[in-house]
């Protein structure tokens, strides 16, 4: 159904609540959208996007959102693909009340537009059996530090706890996936062959006679299945950290992000985001709304980015990474 009743993008309404980067007053629909109030097809109705960093929603906030939605919205909320909770059918005359009541539970309204978005994340290592990294802790840290920072275009981040990559790190502008390098201690090994069978990547073969593992690092995804399966702790965690992917996006012309560093630490993450956004804003000047992946596909830009990042990535940098790869969704 195509709707013929959508007001002009330039239409303005008077609101009594400040939205991100703007104070209250007469604001355009675009300003409002930037602040997380999204114009609906229906006259005077907006969807209010509540931020839920990493998909973790404390019960206190959840109850408040429910209360506000019941009072000012419809009889449902919508969970967005990026883990926000959206309250549809809010009349813009009620924005101030909605914002004030949500803030009673410290629930913030998320943003859209050309800026660093709320990170998405899986549940990570706290209770997920596959989790290798503290995705939730990092999400909170990154959201507190970078949420709303202005960029040339939208800038999406995510955190996955392991190579299963539920948080789709290869489709984000910049994202981090937990990884562990397995190390083998010969003296503890009994040659039981369990690790060779447990590895799903064919990265471990069992020696025909001794049963001991032969490790093929080029095939390893750093998932730690071998470490978990080994009965004698002969496989142990070596370096742990994050695989860093940059320049991915979805949309009509998706890009698969490129791996630019391996095993960066939690402490490296804020500096990586800061330096990347700095590079993005500098090199995107005059190019309009350009995603970082598009920029990185331009001649020489991958090298320029890696040069910018060398002090942060240090020995964790990937040598000569490829630019993000375009994916054709029509074939």
């Amino acid at each position: 159904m195509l709707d013929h009743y959508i007001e002009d993008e330039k239409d303005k309404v008077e609101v009594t609540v400040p939205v991100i980067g703007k104070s209250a007053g007469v604001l355009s629909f675009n300003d409002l959208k930037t602040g997380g109030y999204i114009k609906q097809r229906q006259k005077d109705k907006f969807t209010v996007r509540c931020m839920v960093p990493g998909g973790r929603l404390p019960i206190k906030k959840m109850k408040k959102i429910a209360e506000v939605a019941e009072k000012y919205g419809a009889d449902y909320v919508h969970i967005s693909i990026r883990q926000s909770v959206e309250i549809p059918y809010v009349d813009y005359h009620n924005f101030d009340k909605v914002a004030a009541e949500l803030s009673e539970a410290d629930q913030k309204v998320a943003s859209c537009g050309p800026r660093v978005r709320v990170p998405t994340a899986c549940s990570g290592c706290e209770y997920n059996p596959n989790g290798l990294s503290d995705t939730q802790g990092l999400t909170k840290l990154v959201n507190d530090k970078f949420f709303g920072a202005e960029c040339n275009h939208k800038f999406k981040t995510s955190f996955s706890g392991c190579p299963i990559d539920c948080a789709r790190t290869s489709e984000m502008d910049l994202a981090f996936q937990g990884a562990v390098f397995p190390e083998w201690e010969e003296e503890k090994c009994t040659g039981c062959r369990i690790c060779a069978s447990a590895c799903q990547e064919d990265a471990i073969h069992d020696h025909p006679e001794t049963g001991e593992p032969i490790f093929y690092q080029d095939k390893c995804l750093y998932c730690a299945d071998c470490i978990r399966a080994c009965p004698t702790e002969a496989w142990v965690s070596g370096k742990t950290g994050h695989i860093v992917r940059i320049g991915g996006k979805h949309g009509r012309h998706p890009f698969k992000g490129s791996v630019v560093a391996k095993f960066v630490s939690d402490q490296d993450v804020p500096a990586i985001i800061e330096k990347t956004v700095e590079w993005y804003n500098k090199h995107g000047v005059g190019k309009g709304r350009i995603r970082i992946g598009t920029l990185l596909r331009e001649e020489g830009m991958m090298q320029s980015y890696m040069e910018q990042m060398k002090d942060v990535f240090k020995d964790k940098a990937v040598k000569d990474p490829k630019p993000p790869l375009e994916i054709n969704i029509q074939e």
Partner: protein
Amino acid sequence: MSDIKVDAVLDITNEVCPMTFVKTKLKLETMEPGQHLEVVLCDGEPLRNVPRSLKEEGHKIVGTKKEGNRFHLIVEKGM
């Protein structure tokens, strides 16, 4: 693994996850700490999940044997 006296044998080769571990856990619950259970399981997913879950719950795998695509684990019940 031949020198360990096995107190019970459990074949979970026809089970799928998570029943593989659930059955193992139920069997272990009927046993005393220090007793040994021989678990027969298949390659693949059960092998990725059962040994790690056993370790996480404080049991010890004290012996192993591979037979084709099956593994035998000797599990010593933990406290």
